[in-house]
Structures are given as C-alpha cells and as structure tokens.
C-alpha cells in the first residue's frame, strides 16, 4: 500500500517547505511590504523597491552586465564543450574513462580553491602571462585578473562539466548507424556533424546551456574572488546590500529579478527543447 502513497513525499516536502518555501516567501514579502526594524508590516503593499530598481539606469546596467557575463560563459562552454563531448563519444573505452575523470574532476574541488587557483594562473606573474612573455607573444603582462574577461574564463572552467555531461548523454544515445548511413550516402565528416550530429544533440545543448547560464547568472564566489572589490554584478551587489546598506526592499527586488530571469531562461530553453524533441520523434 505504501508503495504509491503520497506519504513518501512528506519528508522531502517538509524539508523544502521549512527551509526553502518559507524563507523564499519571506524574501518576496520583504520586497512588497515595508520592513520596520526586523518585522514585516503587512498593512499595505509598497512596490517602491521594484519601481526604484526598474527606473534606475545603474541597476539596469548591472542586470544587463550580469546577463551578458552569463551569456558569454554559456557560449564559451558550448564552443569548448561540444567538440569535447563529440570526441568523448568517438573515443575508445580507456580514453573515455580518462576524459570523463578530466571533466568531472573540477566538480570535486571546492569553488573557493578553484577560484584561488585562477588568481594565481591569471595574475600579473601567473602561468598565462609567464608563458606568453617567454614565447615573446606579448611584451608587457596582460591585465586578466580583476577584469570581465578573467571572470568569464574562470567561470567557464567551473561550468564546463555542466555543459559537457548533458551533451555526452544525448550523443551517446545516437545510433552510430545514422552516421554510417550519412557517410554511405556520400556526406563528408563536416556534413555529418552539421546535418546529423548537431541537430540530434540540440536537446543536450539546450539542457547544458540552460544549466550553465542559470548557474553563472547567479554565481557569487568566483566573480567576487577573480573580479575583485569593484566588480559589480547582481550577486555581488546583493552581497554588498546585505552586508552594508541593509536596504531590505531593494535587496529583495534584486533577488527576485535574479530568480525571475533564471526561471524565465529555464522555461524558454525547456520549451524550445520540448518543441524540437517532439518534431524529431515524429520523423523517426
């Protein structure tokens, strides 16, 4: 009887309700109702924080900047991740094990440790500048640390597994006969990738892109460490508001925009992926 009982969901539901739903509801309430001291006054709604957010060019600039950063990270991951995933599915079993451990190993190290690693690598006297200087490609150290480019590089490394794994999942399920058939019909390798492999792996690409975008849009540790003390994106702005100005209303508004944008992106991606997936299913 217990097999299908909804009672099975109670522990998880209780946990989520207490530690996620309630705090989230409070966070929403803080943005809609005025806060006095440490209590929320539910008398009348006050949407001024949202109004302030949406009419202030600075906040809009930061939002656009954060969006652009996440998009750049997603694109970088896609450009590096897709060839890797393709190579992975073509490789022999032994190499696959090796490549897989390469992909997964970054997830196993802490974000802080990884970001500190990037501080050393991207620094004025770091690996990158050292190598470029020695090979005579540049004559003065590049400014990589504490820049948007540096943050994108570091984030892309952190996020790469989340792009590669979904694509590998889709590629691995593709029948190799499809490729053979395409070759048999006279397609070149590039044409096979263009017309067979790529379209069939779109669901994986969408899933990976959505994951990477959402994770980098909301990431704090890596941008805060690699970006430095005046690197402004939505998560670092939220952090600063919680630590300094204690302006709870605008803080809630920023958080909601962050969350809302992420949800919107996930929804768009999944709608796209669903639409495409159905069409291919019909064709087969």
């Amino acid at each position, binding site marked *: 009887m217990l097999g299908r009982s909804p009672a099975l969901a109670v522990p998880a539901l209780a946990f989520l309700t207490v530690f996620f739903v309630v705090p989230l509801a409070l966070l929403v309430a803080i943005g809609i109702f005025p806060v006095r001291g440490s209590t929320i006054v539910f008398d009348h709604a006050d949407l001024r924080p949202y109004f302030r957010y949406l009419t202030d060019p600075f906040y809009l600039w930061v939002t656009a900047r954060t969006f652009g950063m996440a998009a750049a990270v997603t694109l970088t991951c896609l450009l590096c991740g897709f060839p890797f995933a393709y190579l992975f599915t073509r490789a022999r079993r032994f190499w696959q094990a090796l490549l897989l451990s390469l992909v997964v190993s970054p997830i196993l190290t802490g974000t802080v440790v990884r970001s500190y690693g990037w501080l050393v690598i991207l*620094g004025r006297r770091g690996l990158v500048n050292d190598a470029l200087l020695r090979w005579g490609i540049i004559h003065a150290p590049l400014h990589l640390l504490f820049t948007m480019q540096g943050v994108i590089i570091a984030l892309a490394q952190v996020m790469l597994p989340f792009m590669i794994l979904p694509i590998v999942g889709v590629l691995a399920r593709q029948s190799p006969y499809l490729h053979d058939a395409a070759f048999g019909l006279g397609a070149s390798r590039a044409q096979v990738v263009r017309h067979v492999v790529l379209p069939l792996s779109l669901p994986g690409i969408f899933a990976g892109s959505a994951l990477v975008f959402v994770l980098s849009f909301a990431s704090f540790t890596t941008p805060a460490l690699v970006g430095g003390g005046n690197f402004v994106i939505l998560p670092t702005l939220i952090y600063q508001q919680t630590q300094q100005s204690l302006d709870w209303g605008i803080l809630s508004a920023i958080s909601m925009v962050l969350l809302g944008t992420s949800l919107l992106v996930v929804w768009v991606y999944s709608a796209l992926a669903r639409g495409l997936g159905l069409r291919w299913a019909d064709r087969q």
Partner: protein
Amino acid sequence: MKRLFAMCVVLLLGCAVAPHSRAGAAPSAELVLSSYGGQLDEPFRWFLADPFERQTGAKVSLVPSLSLEVLAKIKASPADPPFDVIVLDEGPHLQAAADGLVQRLDDKRVPNLAQVYPAYRKVTGGFGVPQAYSVVGIAYNTKKIKDRPTSWRDLFRPEYKGQVGTVNLNSSLGVAFLVMLARMNGGGEGNIEPGFQAYKTLMASVSAVAPRPGALAALFERDEVAIAPLWNNTILTLREKGLPVDWVVPKEGAVVVMSVMNMVTNTKQPDLAVRFINDAISSEYQLKAAVTPYFFGPTNSRVNLPAAMRRFLPTRPEEVAQLVSLDWNTINRNRQAWTERFNRELGR
C-alpha cells in the same frame, strides 16, 4: 497531486502559526567574538582566548568579520545576536551605539579601564572600551618602488601606473583613504566630491581594488600591486615573513582608527563578556599584541614599547595626537551614499 498540494499548505500554515519561542535548553558557556581574520587573529587566540578558556572553562570562538558585516548580522537578529563581544572600528562603533546594538559597561566591573589613556576614551561615546588602534599609511614594495614614498600624492606618480592597489568602501581603510583624497584636494568628510574626482583620476593607475584589507595585503605577496594605502599591522606581518615591503607615514599624516571592544545588547553571557573585555585591555595582553609582528596600538598606559618600534607604531597619546583622526559621525551619515556612488562611478 491534490493531496500533495494540501499537505504543502498545511505545512506552510504550521510554520506560520508555530510559536516563535526558542527552545529552552540550558545556555552552553560559549563566548563568540568578532575578529580581524588571518594572522591578526593570533594575539586574540593565543594570548587572550586560550588563557581565558583555561581560567573560566568557557569556550571562546573567533569569527573573522569586517565591522560592517558584524553590524549587519546583529541587526538581522537583535534578540538573539550571533556575537557576544565585538571589536568595531570607530565609525561602525558609533553606529552600533546609536542603533542600540551594544550596551554600556559598568566601569567598576572593568577595573583595567582605569589604566586606559583618558584621551582614547573620548572616541567611544560612552560605550565599550578602546581596545587597540591601527594606522593607515602607505605600504610599498621596496624592490619595485625605489624612492621611498613621502606623500599620499606619490600614489598618482605616472611611473606607478598599473601598480597601485586600493580597497573598496566596505572597510574603514577604504573610507579613510577616500576622505584623505578629499582632504588633500580641498574637501573632507563634509565635502567628498574632490575625493571622488581624485579617485577617478587614480583609477587609471589602479591595478586592483581589493574587497578587504587582508586581500590587499595578499596582492603584495603575489606582485599584483606595489604601492597601496594600508593598515600598519596588515602589511607589517608580511614584512616579518620576509616579503620586501615597508610602510611609511606620509607627510600629510597617517590616519589613526581606534578599535572599540563592546558587549553586545542581549548577549546571553554578560558576565563572561565583561571579564573578557577587561582582559583585553590589560597591560599584559596589550604588550603581547603590540610587539612584532602584530603592531596593535596599545591603549593601556602601562604598556612600554621598545623605542625601535616607534616608526611603525606611535605608542603614546602625544604621538597618536599627531596622526589624523577622522570625523566618523559625519562619515556614518554619508557612508551608504558614498558606497553607492563608488559602485556606480568606480565599479567595473
């Protein structure tokens, strides 16, 4: 599905009506102290907390935090504060006193207070005890900067382009530097405009804006910056490790900032807290924290430091009086606006 939804609603309601009383467990004897972080926590840990634990049997936890973070955390839960004893820089201290986050001490229960220089007690506004002071001067890499800096204006020299470090306005260090820039250009606490104008000019030379003073010191270690405004003790601990750095008092003056130790309002351990605060201003402890490599300015008049240390640490009230003190009440009123402006105009 409907039943799941119903359960969710029931749980939500349960949370909403749940009594907000705290479990009545016996309070464990733990004293939570805010601290500076890094090597600067060593004197607190070794010479203050450890002996205190041995004498009282209580546990002392050090939580490294910037002053403003301490305030934010207490404000978020004032009835059950996450700290018992806090050390705050002058500005945040005055803010905490005004907001009722810290309580007045009974002088009779802090006997060591009688040994503290009266001049230092003026900055506390009647709350807490002046525990130590630190000084903002210019730190520089002696291998890369051959001419010893003598003025805050040296940071603007074209040959240091790309080698200057600063810190954002989260810390007293960042604010003090901004005010010094304003003062040098005809402004001050009440007129910060010239400070921001100078800062914007300086940004062309700035290689990194660190999020906190400790991070700025670390940038010296990794050669990202060669010259920066910095606390005497933050950089001199690195010098003791053998790094080629030095620290100077510029001719316009270095900024002295008092650290005030306070008992938090609603602490569950008032007796332990008072005793700890009394220990923290004893001459025995302050001497240990004032010598190499820590350089915390002693507030206890019975601490006698060797003359050789005077260059890094002015030790007597006459010497300290020659340093620059800032008007933190005015700064507090404007600080949020300055931070916002810093983000807007100097963020990237």
